[in-house]
């Protein structure tokens, strides 16, 4: 379903390779990382959590690219607004 939340891997379990301790804004929960077996996460990685399972790794480069685009949009918007203000003064 839909409710997935980003969390950060804190610790991998030595006794159970399919479990990891994950942190969400200060709350900890053991998460099953078995679905990421093809490319397991390591401590520090961000993952998407859904009903106690990690569904995917969060690609920080993609996230940054997305934010850069949005910020640039905001910047261009602010630039235009500024240009609009300036043109009114004249």
């Amino acid at each position, binding site marked *: 379903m839909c409710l997935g*939340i980003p969390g950060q891997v804190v610790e991998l379990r030595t006794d159970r390779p399919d479990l990891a301790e994950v942190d969400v804004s200060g709350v900890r929960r053991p998460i099953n990382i078995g679905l990421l077996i093809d490319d397991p996460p390591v401590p520090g990685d961000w993952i998407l959590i859904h009903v106690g399972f990690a569904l995917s790794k969060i690609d920080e480069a993609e996230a940054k690219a997305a934010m850069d685009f949005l910020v640039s949009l905001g910047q261009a918007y602010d630039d235009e607004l500024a240009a609009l203000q300036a043109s009114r003064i004249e």
Partner: protein
Amino acid sequence: MTGSEVGEVQTAAWAEAVVRTYADQQGPTDREEQVLARIERARRRRPRLTDQRITLAHGAGGKASQTLVEAVFRDAFDNPLLAPLEDAAVFTAGEAALAFTTDSYVVTPLFFPGGDIGDLAVNGTVNDLAVAGAKPLHLSAGFILEEGFPVADLRRIVASMRRAADVAGVSIVTGDTKVVPRGRADGCYITTAGIGLRDPSRHLGAATVRPGDAVLVSGPVGDHGVTVMLARGELELAAPELRSDTAPLSGLVAALFEAEVPVRAMRDATRGGVATVLNELARAAGVAVVVDQAQVPVRPVVRGASELLGIDPLYVACEGRMVVVVPGEAAESALAALRAHPLGAEAALIGRIAEDPSGLVLLKTAFGGTRIMDLLVGDPLPRIC
């Protein structure tokens, strides 16, 4: 494969019955406004309890609880002192202006980070009196104990109650004990009642609330509810530093009065959280409450747990937080008075009273959009969707 192939189709009798009840209000409409007006009329109808049995939703403080109280208790007991359905009943007895309240405590687990059922029992009743503007005087405490409950645990709870009573400046002057067979009472249930003395010249309550008033909260929301949810251990979530916010609010209220803040109304936010209390106020006062989500204080860990579970911290129970309504121009002095007190250090101005839409709470989201924040039917249930 299910037997749907058999072709047998039934109808849900309860659904047909509900449709029939509103048959007079159906009919085509092409105007959204007409439908919304129809809904408002439906919402204002006398509440009727159609449930045959009590469910957990009836105890959650939301719509189901409200319907139960109005359709069963208020109807049966029907008297003007009960009618306002505020946290405490206020009346005069001879020269004395009194406030009187009662509460029951059925929390599980009994002991949790930041307190136990004993703390809740004393603070909860003290707070109902405090927000009625009364100085809490004396409490009663009734115990329902389960056969087999350890005496050591009972002593622990009672010690907490004594400590909490001392901090709040009240004494427990009468009580009762019953024991029920093993399997009932989850160990220990406590019921308290409290009596307090009001200043007869001070008029508080929903009826005094006006458009333009400011709405404040005394601290971060949702600490208690999330602490208890995690303490149950069923969700395997750990938040080691999180504690219940259980505390007596009488000191905070005294601070407001001492600073001569002209308080209109106060409510302590318990089950159902701040959102429920604001809805009750809006409804009782016939005004709108407009909340600025970005201003509502929430601890990061409460936010994290809430996001994980898909619940909204504004609906999560507190046990030591109050909502205070003051005239708009008194907001700054009220905040200052609250923040000067240790329990109010993180007090915040979270919204304003408006005239319209009457009886509703609106939320200006941190994102800048607006929406209604309605009463939940029951407890905020963890979502996965």
